[in-house]
């Protein structure tokens, strides 16, 4: 069947090489990338509606409050964008290695290690000008998170350990390290109920974008996503990564150094999630404690898959998912739904997105002439 398909492509090309490809021919693929995840999202919302109806609530109310809580007011927009910021960064932790054909799901671990490193840097540099401290925090967060995921990459490259499993297990190790330090060596004696590190100091917080309540982490996220896109699609490094990710045998036959690519991409991926940890410390929490393990790393996986691992598509998807999580509070207050319902919705979306993967290339009317 494949040879026939290939031959047919050749036949068309041979007969009409100059024919203008139709609209679907040219944009069918792009439409598909929007339509399928969109349909998965709608399907998931439908199922979630049924779930909510079983609690005796009206699904239409649900959709209204979700919209209202996420995008209905300026306040909810700000809430949504604040949540989207770390999601963009943790999604990059999955999307960048995906260019190399790796499935990394340990963004949460890199986020925690990044937060811990950034906090350590800030505490070590107390008294220096805030800008110096903030730059040091960024560097420490990126390096900490980067090395953490690079460990998963190295385990795969040199020891043949599956990177999906190792990155996931590293999340639990990161959590254990964090708890160990926060309850031991780094504990602020004043934090009684909730063991935490000392505060990094109000002067060192990165603050909000002027005129809004949205912190600067959003800008970090946008810059990182755009930089990742440029890196992958417009640089020599990204090209080599796409070759290696597309076909490792082809990469080897043209002599590309695959180990270096894997380690670098893993470092950048972990660095993005580590930066998310730094942002959460420097813009929200002001210190490191177990609150940081809020699941941004795991939601980031969902964002990356919904965005089909495209760094630019991550931005709108992160905002959408940020909105869903922002509406959680409103759902709880107005509809009396349990706090975890938003997590149920996320789970349903994930299942739908993964299942919808089977539909690519199978939608008849999008195939055009080929």
């Amino acid at each position, binding site marked *: *069947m494949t*040879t*026939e*398909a*290939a*031959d*047919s*492509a*050749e*036949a*068309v*090309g*041979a007969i009409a*090489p100059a024919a203008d*490809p139709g609209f679907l021919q040219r944009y069918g693929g792009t439409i598909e990338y929007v339509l399928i995840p969109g349909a998965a999202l709608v399907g998931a919302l439908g199922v979630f509606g049924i779930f909510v109806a079983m609690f005796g609530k009206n699904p239409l109310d649900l959709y209204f409050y979700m919209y209202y809580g996420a995008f209905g007011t300026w306040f909810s927009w700000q809430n949504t964008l604040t949540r989207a910021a770390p999601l963009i960064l943790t999604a990059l932790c999955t999307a960048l290695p995906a260019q190399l054909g790796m499935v990394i799901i340990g963004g949460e671990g890199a986020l925690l290690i990044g937060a811990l490193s950034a906090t350590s840097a800030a505490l070590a540099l107390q008294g220096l000008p805030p800008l110096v401290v903030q730059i040091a925090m960024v560097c420490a967060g990126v390096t900490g998170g980067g090395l953490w995921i690079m460990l998963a990459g190295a385990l795969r490259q040199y020891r043949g350990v599956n990177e999906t499993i190792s990155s996931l297990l590293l999340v639990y190790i990161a959590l254990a390290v964090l708890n160990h330090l926060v309850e031991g060596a780094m504990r602020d004696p004043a934090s009684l109920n909730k063991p935490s590190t000392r505060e990094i100091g109000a002067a060192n917080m990165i603050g909000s974008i002027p005129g809004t309540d949205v912190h600067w982490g959003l800008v970090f996220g946008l810059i990182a996503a755009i930089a990742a896109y440029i890196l992958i699609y*417009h*640089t*020599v*490094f*990204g*090209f*080599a990564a*796409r*070759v290696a990710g*597309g*076909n490792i*045998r*082809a990469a*080897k*036959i*043209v*002599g*590309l*150094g695959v180990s270096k690519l894997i380690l670098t991409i893993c470092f950048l991926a972990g660095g993005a999630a580590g930066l998310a940890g730094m942002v959460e410390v420097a813009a929200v929490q002001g210190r490191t404690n177990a609150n940081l393990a809020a699941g941004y790393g795991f939601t980031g996986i969902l964002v990356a898959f919904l965005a089909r691992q495209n760094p630019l598509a991550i931005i709108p998807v992160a905002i959408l998912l940020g909105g869903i999580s922002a509406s959680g509070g409103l759902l709880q207050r107005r509809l009396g739904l349990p706090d975890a319902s938003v997590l149920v919705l996320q789970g349903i979306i994930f299942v739908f997105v993964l299942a919808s993967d089977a539909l690519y290339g199978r939608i008849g009317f999008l195939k055009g*002439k*080929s």
Partner: protein
Amino acid sequence: MIIGETPPPSGVFGVDAIAMTMRFGDFLALDNVELKVRPGSFHALLGENGAGKSTLVKCIMGYYHATEGNILIGGREQAIANPKDAHALGLGMVYQHFTLVPAMTIAENLVLARDDVPAVVNWPKEMKQLEAFLARMPFKVPLSAKVSDISAGERQKCEILKQLYLKRRFLILDEPTSVLTPAEADEVLGMLRDMVVRGELTILMITHKFREVMAFADEVTILRRGKLAGGGKVAELTPDAMARTMIGAEELTVQPLRSGEAGQARLELAKVRALDDAGTVAVHDISLTVRAGEIVGIAGVSGNGQRQLVEVLAGQREAEGGEIRVAGDPYHARREEMRRHKMSLLPEEPLKNACVGGMSVADNIAFREFDRAPFASGGWWLNRGAFRDDATKKIRQYRIKTRTPETPISALSGGNVQRAVLARELAGDVEVLIAANPCFGLDFAAVAQIHAEIMAARNRGAAVLLVSEDLDELLELSDRLVVMFHGELVYEARTSEADLTVVGRHMAGH
């Protein structure tokens, strides 16, 4: 014409395909094709890749449903909805690649293939029946041997025996000799021919080897681009006439004459050892020298370590031991070394080994040069215009049929994928060329072009290592011929002095 009645329960029967048309979307794979296989004849189906041979037999076997046309089995029209129906009518198919379970014995494989395998197999009884069956057959195979332990020739015999054991009386053979040595091929086809002559079988064989058609077939049908191009009694045709019918008016690239003498040693292998995926030694301390301006051909039946040897040279597999030198320098398949020594690689199955299917033709053509000017500005920023310009030039020069340079390379046919790889690997200066089955499964035009390019590279002074399972290709191109068997080089001769029977004997390990 009676519809739906099964053919006579014994004896041979013929198959007719009438006005077969098969469409895949807009593509016409078969266009009003006629095929008439007489009862008790040995019929050959010739055609290039993509001519529609496989599509036609798949329609007969019920894998595809023809858009239009009828199939007559033993003179009666039959609606063959699926392969099971075809089997019930006595039709069997033997594929190019083996379908036996390697970890089981031949007897187990035969019994397993039956439709009515009992829940508990009475092995003593089955063995007795199998031995009785085998006694009537011209082939002898060791029933209790494991399939993984027997040679390719014996496996192909088992495939055919399996069809006979299942009481199939019309066999369709899809390039059955592609993995056999010439001697094995002659043996298997000769025995089948005897069965046909005795009136026990009818055979339809897909092939592209004229030698086999001339030696064994009674009649031939030739397809070209989905249309019936010709046919008739083999006795009345010549290989030349058949070749002309197959390729039509297409002009083939003329191969340059061999010129110049071999120079200095360029590629040297010293005791190279490599393992296969299962961890057993596949390449056994091979030492070999290829000089500038020389083509060294490595012959051998597939699976004797050639693939692993090429993978080591291509950087796709780590050598376990030994040393490789290129122009005197140690070589580890690094990008910088490949570049310094102007190395080119034409691996087998280019889409799997040398291309990224989802990336564009232009990108794939640039794999060797993308990190240098003019493709990269400042060593890091990709210059898209340069990709497009270079690809446009090479697409024209190498006659790559693609809709645009931006089309994903996986949408191209096999011949055009290989042309794109040729464009990438051979466009610049070449000092060392390593090619492995570069023409496998390609059409005449592509084969002629690739052979011409390889010979031209040799004449320009490149050291060429050509690994191929096609002995004719090796005899045509190489200056020196070595035979690889069980991971070792067991025979070497100048091609002009090589004796085909001796080469064949070494390929089979004698």
